[in-house]
């Protein structure tokens, strides 16, 4: 969890990938409690099946939050200046997700770096992509 230094964060630098999960229904519920989003499609099996899904699935903002954790663990929670996500595939119970990222830009005067990040389902596709800006002291 050592914060990366400016000299190390050149354009093209890859951050070490990290695996999270397997995600459980309990993880979904814990996130729903923490976030206040109680859409039953993420925890109520009957409701999810009734809506045409094989089972419940994760909250998009949970994998977004895990990807944010991946970034702040490496660059420091107090240094984030922007974090934007787009949702791709759904994440299902039992999925493991691998977070990775790389430096795509540097602003020398502002001492900020731009990152592209993704959370990929093991054995599946990309669940969430993100772009982020971090200050680097």
């Amino acid at each position, binding site marked *: *969890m050592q914060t990366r230094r400016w000299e190390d964060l050149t354009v093209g630098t890859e951050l070490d990938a990290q695996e*999270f999960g397997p995600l459980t229904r309990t*993880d979904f519920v*814990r*996130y729903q*409690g*923490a*976030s*206040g*989003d*109680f*859409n039953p*499609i*993420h925890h109520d099996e009957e409701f999810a099946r009734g*809506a*045409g*899904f*094989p089972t419940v*699935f*994760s*909250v*998009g*903002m*949970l994998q*977004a*939050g*895990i990807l*944010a*954790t991946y*970034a*702040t*663990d490496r660059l*420091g*929670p*107090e*240094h*984030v*200046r*922007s*974090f*934007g*996500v*787009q*949702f*791709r*595939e*759904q*994440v299902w119970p039992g999925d493991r997700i691998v977070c990775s990222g790389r430096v795509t830009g540097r602003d020398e005067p502002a001492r900020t770096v731009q990152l592209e990040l993704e959370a990929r389902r093991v054995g599946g596709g990309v669940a969430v992509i993100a772009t*982020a800006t971090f200050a680097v002291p």
Partner: protein
Amino acid sequence: MVDPSVVGLADEPFEMVLERGKIREFARATMSSHPAYLADPAPVIPPTFLTTTSFWAPPGRSVFAKIRLDLRRVLHGGQEYTFFGPPPRAGTTLTVQTRVADVFEKQGRRGGTMTFVVTVTEFRDPTGRLVAEARSTVIETGRPPTAADDATGDGATGKEHS
């Protein structure tokens, strides 16, 4: 189709207090064990923490109540947070206000028109300084989303906007 005249519509501002326990709970739920969240007596908020405005928003007064989305057909397309300096810390009271920034349509890959609604939420500290901004894109699909949407990449997670 959402009426495009809703662009510019804003809801009533409300207060949100950033609390240490909620930050800790959120950090754990998003699988962080960083001491900046868990050990600092006044931790900064995690990057996506401002999604918890739903705990503070007055019920039924959301701007979404006014734009009449069909919730059975709503997907969460994207979410972006901007911080104008370090993220705010526990103990801060923020004033929160959401406005509709844009409404536009696109053709879905599997047919049907998708309507995109972009909202911008401003978070101001007690001095009135803008400390953070959230930009959210929700998509109203032409028909209810199904598991098959997963393969199309059209959308999203099936997360309904609450």
